[in-house]
């Protein structure tokens, strides 16, 4: 079944290593340690997709122009297509697959569903990761803050993205009360 959801917690993950190794060669991905071998110049995007099969992070342009591959590196929104794997060693990467926690979906994920943002859906993982950085930095973002998200959406979902980010901020505020 290509695309019927399975629960995130059941998503198979590659074996993570014990972690007693040299931290400088380790990259944390969604909370698990990895020791990427192979070509250290391989962009994180292709390491995530082709090697780890974490395919939620999407390829869109290969030059950091569209944001479809946005992931968080130490909490900062970065373009995985222009970030070599070697540059992530010693750092913590969060992909769309790692955004939800045991407590449930991230407020952005909930808001995205509630506002029915996605059309084709291809850019949305990147949009959400970019918004995740924004919300972490600016818990109550205004229109101007949201307008700074540079990710492309070819389907034109921007107005619903705006609404979803505001709704997520509200969900997060209510959740933290």
């Amino acid at each position, binding site marked *: 079944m290509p695309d019927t959801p399975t629960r995130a917690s059941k998503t198979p993950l590659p074996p993570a290593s014990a972690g007693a190794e040299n931290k400088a060669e380790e990259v944390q991905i969604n909370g698990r340690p990895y020791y990427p071998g192979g070509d250290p110049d391989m962009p994180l995007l292709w390491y995530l997709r082709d090697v780890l099969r974490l395919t939620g992070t999407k390829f869109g342009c290969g030059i950091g122009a569209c944001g479809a591959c946005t992931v968080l590196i130490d909490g900062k929104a970065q373009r995985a297509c222009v970030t070599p794997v070697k540059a992530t060693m010693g750092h913590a990467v969060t992909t769309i*697959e790692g955004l939800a926690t045991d407590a449930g979906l991230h407020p952005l994920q909930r808001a995205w*569903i509630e506002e029915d943002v996605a059309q084709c859906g291809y850019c949305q993982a990147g949009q959400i990761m970019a918004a995740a950085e924004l919300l972490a930095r600016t818990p109550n973002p205004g229109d101007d803050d949201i307008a700074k998200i540079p990710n492309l959406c070819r389907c034109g979902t921007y107005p619903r993205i705006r609404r979803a980010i505001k709704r997520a901020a509200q969900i997060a505020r209510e959740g933290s009360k």
Partner: protein
Amino acid sequence: MSGLSRRAFLFATATASGALLVSWKFARADQPLPYRGARDEAQALGDFVRIEANGDVVIGARGCEIGQGVKTSLPMLIAEELDVGWERVRVEQLPYGYVETDKGPSNRYGGQGAGGSDNIPSGWKDLRQAGAVARWLLVQAAAARWDLPAAQLRTQSGAVIAPDARRLGYGELAAEAAALDLPKDPVPLKTPDQFSIIGKPTRTVDGEAIVTGRAQFGIDAYFTNTLFAVMLRCPHLDGGIEKVDDSEARKVPGVKDVIVIEGPKAGEPIDGVLASGVAVLADSTWAALKGRAKLKVEWTEGPWAGESTSALAAKAQELLDKNEGAVPVRNDGDFVKTRKQAPIHVEARYEMPFLAHATMEPPGAQISIEKDKAVLIASLQSPSGASQIISNLTGIPRKDIEIRLTRSGGGFGRRLKNDFVAEATLIAKAAGKPVKLIWTREDDLQHDFFRPFGVHAMSAALDKKKKIVGWSHRCAATPRNYRDRGMTEGKRPLYVGCIEPDDFPAGLVANLEKTFFPIASGMPRGWWRGPIHTFHAFAVQSFIDEIAIATKQDAVQLRLDLLGPPRRMKYEDSDQPGFDTGRLAGVLQLAADKIGWKDKRSDGHGLGIACHFTFGGYAAHAFEVSVEGSELLIHRAVCAVDVGRVVNPLGVEAQMMGGTLDGISTAMNLAITLKDGQVQQRNFTDYPLMRMAQSPQSVEVHIVESTEEPSGAGEIGVPSAAPALANAIYAATTVRVRKLPLLAELKRML
């Protein structure tokens, strides 16, 4: 393993090759499809419905989901007639359903392509019946169980109910119902007053899968032991390969093979690959890309080496000036004579650039070919075309080609072509291994089936009461109808895809001529969302505005006067029941009311409006804008739409919002240009789609309530957006933009 530390093992695995890692359990492409939908499966009620013992309902989605929402809206049609609660429904994507019958090739699921905004109209015809048949089977099963006449039973929300209020849930009846024969004749459908799902705002069924990264697109599928392929394609239109030096490419670690692919011969139909090229196969996408960068290829330039968009533009103007060699499109009354006698003339020309589709997910394909069967997983709009191409290139009968459909990262008409499937097929055949073909964004912008380039010359004649009595629309363009076997064999006229004989204001102006001037070009051309209509509506709806301004008439009233009393008119090339002038007037008036057309604006704000009919749907756009310095500010964006009965209001709203933004993003920013026979654009840096900062805060979508037959909403949101914006810019600035992309032209003119 004992001698290796855990870490060393991981290193070893990753270093050896990506292919080794495939054996970890992520090769979803190799898992069997859980949904077969066949009668041979327990609890299957026809090809689309399966009911679990616990009453959960699984509905098969047959369409290609390219963002237009059919994976949600089509199953809604089935669920409605099945009479189940939507919350009990789980939707599964169906594969391509090619079957061979006594009467020849057929599709067990009906039409599965995505084109012509046709999914809803065709699903309205057959998918409701599929749901009703499944319900009928359940009722028959209950009737047998209770020994009651079926006519005495009714259904409600997933249960059959007897006159004495006994109930049997569908889950309890499914096995018995599945064993019954299908009815010979169509069974009755609900009347609209009985609808409980159709017309209810319904969120996309893949919402959670998308926001958690689990939704699968074509590019997300991996076959075990797949090779990763990228291609270097000839940058010259109809060019070829003189010499390939792959020695450096083959030295790149991970590169496994290099394969030359022949393109179509100049002038011959393009129904396989699009261009000649060299494929690099490797054990990861990255290695393939590095290998490609090391290829040294000498190309031959082909017959179009000197082609440029500036020359095409000059040629278009020349053809229109000389007015020779025209292909007639439509001729009513006598425009030439009318114009001679008319006291008022208005004329203008509008230039439309080539456009690329730029789907967010670039083209690509995953294919596994064995001796006598093949499996394709790709983001598609035309699975039947893909099946045909694979069969043509491999000799494998179509019945032995399995095509699994996924979500597509956008379509916009790009995936109506299957050139990328042809490439993957040829590469996999040569390599003897499954292949995952990736297109980069550069590949995508350089090698597309572009929307045609052209110039529209408009001319109107008005009598002394300022009534439009003559209308001429002459279009000089690179014909959409180009090396397309389907169109050539169907002997479709050369103008198809550039200008519509019956489009507004045909039939509304007594003396009307439409002519077409083909311009030779080596640019491959194809369908681009809304196809013909995004190409000519800008000219028609800008020009109407120019007439209104030149003759000091209200731009809304002028259109309403032309449309006249509500009536239905003939419209060729449409399965829909013609063009209803009243419905177009209705959306125009609605958009005008919502934007406050009659209210005075100050502070340099301007209003613009436009309307259009296509694929059975009616839309109007109105914008309020101002221009500060050279910056365009869109204060309000209003879209009114009439697509008949609405299946999913949330989906229609999304399509109109997205269509509006697609229309203005493209009009403001985008053009593909040619110089020395090569496409100049490379990536989103020089093909700059609209970003959040440039988008209006919201698009106010107003949907007309209607009991007319439903039409599709995927394309009607686009055509009138750009002219409404240009008209608003004129109102704000008195600068008339007649050439796209609009922002560059506006900057030049201000």
